[in-house]
């Protein structure tokens, strides 16, 4: 018996690229939606070609990019060269059989191709169209260029990440690319629910900038209402101490610790073996600890440095104190019993990369869990989409391929 999938009745035509929007449609595809990812050799998704570490043995291969594959699991992949005049009519036929159309270009590209919302709703009036651009399709910066790297700076994440006297570091990943997908998938399904109730489609003018800022509401309101410009704290908290990242035994090994109450502080002292610093009167109250943060952190680190991070975590957790290893990729993939228990990473066999890990959703649905399939090779599903879905003859598909329309 096959597992039921939640989104099987939905078809998404996906003109997006890079991270944010493709991951959004990945989550829909992993839950059963038929997502048709439109690509072209003329305009390759950079994730198929950039970088090296996410290729097996550092050897680039158009179909072997872990970067691309991870974000495009469970999708159908077709090639369609939108710069070829005959391609637009085929794109329009695909629109006619889809429920949702998504792109992540600036407004200029889709307008140029005649594939903007006003054009598309003539084809299918109840269509849901989402433009997942960086800054939205209106306003003075609508056509500004950007990627996740810049968006985390633009949207305030960099300013809030780092040490007070250091650089506004942000993360070493294109962080917003991993926050946007949940916004995008959620608003798509909400529009589908509305369409089901009313029969009406919708144009969603998504702004990655706005969505990212909307995760920082209280911080922005503190500036608006109180004139206070919050800044980076290096992991320290105004209401908990000790609170931060502490060096442990090993090369580049660390543990996060968060002590909120005096009882938790006493528990930490017990776990550390009742050292004299844990008994110091100035550390016995929250206010005292907040007042002497440098000394406090130095003492805690002097204890953690003598133990592996997993020991620190396990002992503190056993004593009721929040603590967690600063885990890296190997920890997560090989040494984390919790993620293993959840089956978080899915191992799938891909024709080029062989057996490899894909990220599964951060949630488990009891009745309709995700079922992942490997990402498509470039144009892998041309025969299915053009032949079966659009009813084109084998001869036509061959001609379009030869003429670099399916390219």
């Amino acid at each position, binding site marked *: 018996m096959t597992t039921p999938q939640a989104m099987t009745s939905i078809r998404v035509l996906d003109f997006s690229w890079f991270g944010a929007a493709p991951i959004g449609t990945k989550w829909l595809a992993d839950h059963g939606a038929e997502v048709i990812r439109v690509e072209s050799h003329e305009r390759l998704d950079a994730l198929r070609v950039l970088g090296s*570490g996410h290729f097996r043995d550092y050897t680039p291969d158009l179909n072997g990019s872990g970067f691309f594959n991870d974000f495009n699991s469970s999708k159908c992949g077709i090639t369609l060269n939108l710069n070829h005049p005959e391609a637009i009519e085929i794109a329009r036929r695909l629109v006619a059989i889809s429920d949702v159309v998504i792109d992540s270009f600036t407004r200029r590209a889709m307008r140029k191709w005649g594939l903007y919302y006003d054009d598309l709703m003539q084809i299918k009036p109840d269509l849901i169209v989402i433009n997942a651009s960086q800054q939205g399709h209106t306003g003075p910066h609508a056509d500004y260029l950007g990627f996740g790297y810049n968006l985390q700076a633009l949207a305030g994440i960099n300013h809030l990440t780092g040490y007070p006297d250091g650089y506004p570091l942000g993360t070493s990943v294109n962080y917003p690319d991993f926050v946007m997908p949940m916004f995008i998938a959620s608003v798509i*399904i909400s529009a589908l629910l509305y369409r089901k109730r009313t029969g009406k489609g919708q144009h969603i003018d998504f702004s990655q900038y706005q969505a990212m800022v909307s995760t*920082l509401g209280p911080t*922005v309101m503190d500036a608006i209402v109180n004139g206070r410009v919050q800044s980076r704290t290096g992991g320290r908290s105004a209401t908990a101490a000790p609170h931060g990242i502490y060096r442990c035994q090993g090369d580049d090994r660390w543990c996060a610790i968060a002590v909120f109450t005096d009882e938790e502080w006493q528990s930490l002292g017990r776990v550390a073996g009742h050292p004299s610093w844990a008994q110091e009167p100035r550390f016995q109250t929250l206010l005292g600890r907040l007042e002497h943060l440098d000394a406090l952190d130095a003492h805690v680190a002097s204890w953690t440095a003598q133990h592996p991070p997993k020991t620190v975590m396990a002992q503190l957790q056993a004593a009721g104190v929040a603590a967690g290893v600063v885990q890296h990729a190997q920890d997560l993939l090989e040494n984390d*019993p919790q993620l293993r228990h*959840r089956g978080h990473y899915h191992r799938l066999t891909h024709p080029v990369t062989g057996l490899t890990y894909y990220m599964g959703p951060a949630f488990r649905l009891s009745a309709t869990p995700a079922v992942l399939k490997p990402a498509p090779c470039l144009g892998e599903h041309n025969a299915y989409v053009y032949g079966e879905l659009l009813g084109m003859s084998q001869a036509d598909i061959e001609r379009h391929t030869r003429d670099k329309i399916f390219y």
Partner: protein
Amino acid sequence: MPAAPHDDNPAHDNDPKAMLSGYRVLDMCDEKGLLCTKLMADLGAEVIVVEPPKGSPARSRSPFYHDQPDREKSLYFWYFHTNKRSVTLNLETPDGQALFKSLVQTADVLVETSIPGELDRLGLDYEHLRALKPDLIMTSITNFGREGPYRHYKASDIIGLSMGGLTYLCGEPDGPPVPPGGEQGYQLAALNGTMSTLIALWHREMTGQGQHIDVSMQAAVANTLETSHQTFDFNREIRTRTGHRRQASAYILPCLDGFIAVLGTSRMGWPRLVEWLRDEGEGDAIADPQFTDDYYRFEHEDVVYQTLCDFFATRTKQAIYTEAQRRRLPLAPVNTPQDLADSPQLQARGFFVEVEHPELGATVRYPGAPYGLSETPWRLRHRAPSLGEDNEAIYVRELGLSRDALSALRAGGIL
């Protein structure tokens, strides 16, 4: 346009034109779930926050309106509870549990963040609630998941960010890891709560079947690590933090009035960046076309870094942003929260919304919608509810509790 003042008539609370109108969501969330239910409330769902009699812990979170620490003036609570309603209920008491069960029977969705096992103890776990409401969707957002060896581990934002692997990727390469700011661990968990709940709602619309959803904050964070797992899987290389010098011409650099994020790594980007410097009479050290080659540029990273440092140090964020974008270069300012509040793009998009707070005689500016919607305009209908503001509307007018019973429950510490 100012949003309408709060109105406790449920008929008025529902906006039939909104995407999620008609759905009732019960909200028993701490910080891991507040954004989850806010997104649904702002899309038109009727979200009822079920608070303990002393109030949701979020009411004591700073910042406060004009720095007045008062449970009705937390900006933190306000922001995450727009468009929501509030009832109070002590779930430790049999009367409270009975009322909660009546409430569940009127709801489509329950979102909760309790410690695994806590609701079982109260007889309010999914199996019990499903017996009362077979098509219920229950979304449980926890630190590590409802099952598994770490299910009882304590965690706050920093623990989730660290166990999920993002902290390791933040910081300078030769320094300690530093957790990202903005409580992103909580927000990632909450956003996965929204997405999974909506997937389940769609399934219920198609089949009539409800289900239980198990969201893990740790797993939510683990899905932000870009190529980390593939890089380890393919090559056994552990991706680590890159700090403010990510690679040659992807930098965070100081400028005259703050910092700027520079990205000139692409085939198109690098020549445009060099041309800009040349037009300003600078950048001789990187003018050699050999720098267009990634590997050459990486080998001479120090020259690239120093040249760009010198160039941007004398210019302002705004001037850099405007000129870079004119030249089709994807540079961006490192915005502070004040810059966000002042952003001309956010303002032109109508992102900020004035919300009336009648009891303060004031309107307050809130960050608003993540998106523009053509058919169902996003609306901030009303401010966050005061504690138990909707007790009477829900318990008396809707569930038919008598006023005497309401008074008794209040006196007994149950509401």
